[in-house]
């Protein structure tokens, strides 16, 4: 993840994004319902990126998402999902999907940084959608306490108050958020991958999103003050622990205590 975001800081990347931006500016603000302040001004990529992305798409994604990403039985249309959706889905390895199932699993990314960027450029060229967020929104230096409040109201019911993940219906689940880059967290909020609702910028402002990321990064960096966190899963893991480890150790002591010395 680190390598990914560092390469994005490469000066060439900014220029490429700028060019891309020029190409798609016309379409970007067309739909009023997509309220998204996070659309980066630096969203600019070259035409060749789009073209190469198109080739990658045709070779790797079109089987399910259809030629021209217009969707098929096997996968939804990607017109208008934006570069953020591609960066999230491909960057976290969820796409291409390993197999059909209730939900795409996170796995090692199948495409490198460069290829992901080109794919994103291609999909973004198909229709306006949320762009990849700017650096300063995902740096984790916002107000962690305000972010915590937003997180508890909007996210904790699925992802757990300590972001340890939780179950959804019929085999779906909300993943744990430790180790997920700020960029991907941001992109997930604006695009609503799979069954996650969309949190557009009028619902949670870009600053609010930055605060949420800051909160997550803070608690991840802090760790638990009380020692090992037992998965931060709450009373179930605590109960298991006291029955297995706590009582186990005590039973070992009782056996020693009542045994005869040789």
């Amino acid at each position, binding site marked *: 993840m680190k390598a990914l975001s560092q390469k994005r800081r490469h000066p060439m990347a900014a220029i490429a994004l700028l060019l891309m931006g020029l190409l798609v500016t016309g379409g970007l603000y067309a739909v*009023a*319902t*997509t*309220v998204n302040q996070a659309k980066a001004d630096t969203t600019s990529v070259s035409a060749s990126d789009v073209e190469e992305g198109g080739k990658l798409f045709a070779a790797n994604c079109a089987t399910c998402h259809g030629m021209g990403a217009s969707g098929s039985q096997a996968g939804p249309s990607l017109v208008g999902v934006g570069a953020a959706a591609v960066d999230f889905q491909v960057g976290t390895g969820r796409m291409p999907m390993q197999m059909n199932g209730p939900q795409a699993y996170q796995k090692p990314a199948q495409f490198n940084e460069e290829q992901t960027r080109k794919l994103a450029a291609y999909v973004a060229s198909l229709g306006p959608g949320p762009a990849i967020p700017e650096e300063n929104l995902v740096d984790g230096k916002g107000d962690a306490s305000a972010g915590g*409040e*937003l997180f508890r*109201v*909007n996210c904790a*019911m*699925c992802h757990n108050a300590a972001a340890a993940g*939780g179950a*959804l*219906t*019929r085999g*779906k689940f*909300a993943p744990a958020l430790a180790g997920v880059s700020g960029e991907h967290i941001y992109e997930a909020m604006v695009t*609503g991958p*799979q*069954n*996650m*609702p*969309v*949190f*557009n910028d*009028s*619902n949670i402002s870009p600053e609010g999103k930055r605060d949420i990321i800051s909160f997550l990064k803070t608690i991840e960096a*802090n*760790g*638990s*003050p*009380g*020692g090992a966190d037992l998965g931060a899963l709450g009373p179930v893991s605590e109960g298991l622990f006291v029955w297995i480890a706590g009582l186990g150790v005590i039973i070992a002591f009782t056996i*020693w*205590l009542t*045994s*005869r*010395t*040789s």
Partner: protein
Amino acid sequence: MGNHSDGSPNHSGTVATAGQSEVAKFQDPGIPPHRLRLADTDPRAAKRAERQVALLFGSSVVGTVIFLVAYFAIDLGADSTIGTVRLQNALLGLGTAFAMLGIGTGIVHWAKALMPDHEVSEERHAIRTEEDRQAAVRIVDDIVEETGIKRRPLIRNTLLGAVALAPLPALAIFGDLGPRPDDKLAHTMWAPQDGKLKRLARDPDGTPIKAADVTIGSAFHVIPEGLNEMHEGKLDEKAKSVVLLMRLNPEELNPSPERADWAYNGIVAYSKICTHVGCPVALYEQQTHHLLCPCHQSTFDLTQQCKVIFGPASRPLPQLPIAVDSEGYLVATSDFHEPVGPSYWEREEHVRNNNA
């Protein structure tokens, strides 16, 4: 042997015991002979055990020192971090554990290795003797007889009546623990005030929501406008009035005729309080349009007016009728048409009153 001795007569013979009558059982060989320990025979082993015990007690002293050092040397002041708290907590635990386990294991090792380990047999004494038993029964009979309670039913019955009623004040005195419920559960603060419709506002900051803000696939956590400004009973109101706002494709909604105008452009608002036991039903799956309660997994289908499709809830989530005001903000056109949250005894009556 065989001292069952609770004094009651013919205590045996009521249980048929197999093989006892016709076949001889194995005889009890008695307590096994005592085996000597190493420390009993070998003075060096005894000395070694003694040193081990002393070492364990010594480790307890080390533990106490660790505790005191961790307590006084680690500063939880301004420049402390979570890591500092964790370190101190771990060292306090380690110190206490050493201090306690050192004493505990030391004493036990001492007892096991050096104190006499002869198993001894002690006779059980009867809990009571037959003589006592008969005397006790007689005494109770005499006491009852002397009160004459059996011969004077008037006394007995009035006493029983008085004793039965006497605790009533003790119950009544708790009458002021809380107010009467009346119809407090039937209303929320979504009801229009002075003809002014309540706007839907974001939780937690309380800013109103425009219909245009709600894109397809979004979920907003909503409180009534003005809730955050309350001081008295804010959480009580919030506990009833929290709402989840979602937008779907309008054709997916399938509203019943009487609720046709309760949604706006595919935007619907449902109570977030589970009809099962009241947890916030906040998990919205934007593709399946299911709402899931994280406490007991009741699942509600948004496309069927939040009908229960799985789990322990029995009733659909109440819907909040919404519309858009002149400035484009979402407003509740009325209160919920039924009480929100878990069922209660008087609920049906409140539903009828609300709809009357």
